[in-house]
């Protein structure tokens, strides 16, 4: 019956696979149809939704700027983050911070530059009052979002190689804040206006290695799961030992009490599992004599407990029986007979099969 069930399941699963293949084929067919995107373009809502499909678009940082004293702060949710970060801009010497604005990456996109490496935004920093004209100003950009590997890349479209590294100093600051210190020469390669005029326009953004982060975090988090579950395993093993001892002490005490009451001819229970059901069964029997008749469900429980006790006693005595020991010569040790009672006779084999099926049913969580 089980084999038949499995065969049915397997055929059913194959049909399921065929249907999924059909869906996938439909997809491929549709994707190859040139008129399909045009059909979407006809709908205004569709345009919005299509744009929303792109994860890059959804995760585009939208910085909001605030100015406090000489510091301008950008608050934004970077790519691959769900919480906002704050990036502070400040000119420490050689000029005055005039303004900081966000810039779309598309304007600076080049084939050799991967947007994924720029998790926060690109910024246009304007510095004025650079005196004397043509001298250096020092820009400080700080955030707890930066790591020791963060670089600050500069974009200057007037240069043949528009993207280059600013070679900034990455310094650890208070708390977990890191500070990127960049020296910018008025009219130099970092200055997008290209003129030594006492004003600097500095375009660029912080860069972190996307693949380095993705692979690094992969290993750390995979082994993190092992760590978490190992800690849980250790906790459970420890509690298992404690509970086993408590149970053993309890059963020892109860067995001592029983032998004191009834003398030495009382049969010991085959295992600790039997004790509680026996107690419950006895308690149930007593209460049923005194109180109203039990509802059907609790009667069923009693029958089940009685059946379980009968089965256990049967197996227990059968194990002691010399005829059974002679039958099971292939399994000479007691331990192996306990582990494999299925070898003893057809009665216990059937019983075990039935019990295992019932347990299997109790784990049926089809509501998932």
């Amino acid at each position, binding site marked *: 019956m089980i084999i038949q069930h499995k065969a049915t399941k397997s055929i059913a699963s194959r049909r399921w696979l065929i249907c999924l293949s059909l869906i996938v084929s439909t997809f491929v067919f549709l*994707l190859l149809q040139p008129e399909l995107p045009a*059909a979407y373009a006809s709908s205004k809502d569709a345009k919005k939704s299509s744009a929303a499909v792109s994860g890059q678009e959804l995760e585009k940082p939208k910085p909001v700027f605030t100015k406090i004293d000489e510091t301008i702060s950008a608050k934004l949710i970077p790519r691959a983050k769900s919480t906002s970060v704050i990036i502070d801009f400040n000119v420490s010497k050689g000029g005055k911070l005039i303004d900081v604005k966000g810039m779309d990456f598309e304007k600076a996109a080049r084939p050799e530059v991967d947007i994924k490496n720029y998790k926060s935004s690109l910024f246009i920093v304007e510095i004025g009052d650079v005196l004397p004209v043509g001298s250096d100003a020092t820009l400080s950009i700080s955030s707890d979002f930066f790591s020791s590997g963060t670089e600050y890349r500069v974009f200057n479209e007037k240069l043949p190689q528009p993207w280059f590294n600013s070679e900034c100093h990455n310094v650890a600051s208070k708390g977990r804040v890191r500070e990127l210190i960049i020296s910018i020469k008025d009219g130099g390669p970092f200055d997008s206006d290209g003129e030594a005029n006492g004003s600097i326009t500095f375009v660029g953004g912080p860069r972190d290695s996307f693949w380095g982060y*993705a692979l690094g975090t992969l290993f750390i988090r995979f082994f993190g799961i092992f760590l*978490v579950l190992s800690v849980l*395993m250790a906790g459970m093993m420890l*509690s298992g030992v404690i509970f086993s001892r408590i149970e053993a002490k309890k059963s020892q005490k109860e067995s001592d009490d029983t032998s004191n009451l009834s003398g030495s001819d009382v049969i010991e229970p085959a295992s600790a599992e039997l004790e509680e059901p026996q107690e419950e069964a006895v308690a149930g029997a007593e209460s049923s004599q005194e109180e109203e008749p039990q509802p059907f469900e609790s009667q069923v429980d009693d029958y089940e407990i009685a059946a379980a006790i009968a089965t256990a006693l049967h197996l227990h005595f059968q194990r002691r029986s010399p005829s059974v020991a002679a039958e099971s010569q292939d399994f000479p040790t007691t331990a192996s007979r306990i582990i494999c009672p299925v070898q003893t006779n057809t009665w216990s084999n059937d019983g075990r099969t039935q019990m295992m099926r019932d347990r*299997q049913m109790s784990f049926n*969580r089809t*509501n998932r």
Partner: protein
Amino acid sequence: MSWSQVLELIQNILISQTGLPHITWGQLVMLFIGLLFLYMAIAKEYEPLLLLPIGFGIFLVNFPITPLMGFTEHGTPELIRVFYKYGVEWEVIPCVIFLGLGAMTDFGPLIANPKTLLIGAGAQLGVFVTYIGVLFFGFTLKEAASVGIIGGADGPTTIYLTAKLAPHLLGANALAAYSYMAMVPLIQPPIMRLMTTDAQRKIKMRQLRYVSPREKLLFPLIACTLILLLIPAVAPLMGMFMLGNLMRESGVVKRLSDTAQNSLMNIVTIFLGLSVGATMQAEVFLNWKPLMIFVFGLLDFIVCTFGGIITVHIMNMFLKEKMNPLIGSAGVSAVPMAARVAHSEGLKADPSNWLLMHAMGPNLAGVIGSAAAAGMFIAMFQ
């Protein structure tokens, strides 16, 4: 009113108030897909509890200009949008489902053999392999994480993580997760046979020890404490899961436990299915990403099965009492399907080898492992 004015009025009504002129090829395809899933659910009874509302959700929202998933002019959400917003977007329904699952779960096999927790961890290998794999195909980190979790084979966890990180992929991810969960009996056996020898499949494991009710009662508290101290981000899922289990094991709130297992679970399943189905509008769903998700979802399941079995092989190098490597495949948390598959493969090798209860350990560990993986991903983006 002249005839021309009457005709113009009729024309206006037909154009602006009926759906027919607005229907697109994409919507027709989605209607077909919706009907296909309804057929699967009703005629073939594949995961009908979820595929029926999902199928009908797809069917409903792909009729043009229907006021179901949008917002009114005043910004009030329309009917299914309300279910989606408060149920899925606010992360309520997956957590309530976890409450029900906790109330349904007997952790006895896992408590009796805690070593199987490591198998649950090993079976998360596919989650991370897929995460890297899809990054090569232009997915963002958040999208990659939400696709990776499909291999954890846990529907509510997949929905929870996807709703949090990449809501635009919710429909495809949920559909892939539930579809492949239904296909576990087809996907896993060839990998299991490939990765084990006949002798290994015949390994008999010792009868699990007795677990006292007191031990089962304390398990949700111990597990909750340890997991939440290490991964606080998983608190909504794990907290509800362990609350459900505590209600079950305490035995003093049978009414609450029954409600969580049955009525509440059924109610939220209706809203979850409908909301997930309703996210699959043609203009969002018909692109190359869902296709990739289905392909990588399958790969994910295969690698997760591989990861579970290989973990048992590695553990067997150090254990005196060897474990049957077939139970490694149950490390994916498709409860109890994966455990049944391990059990039936064991029976094929030796008809007297009952692996079901042994496989339930890694199966339950898989639930905790996939929730832990989801927590890791959530923490990564915080």
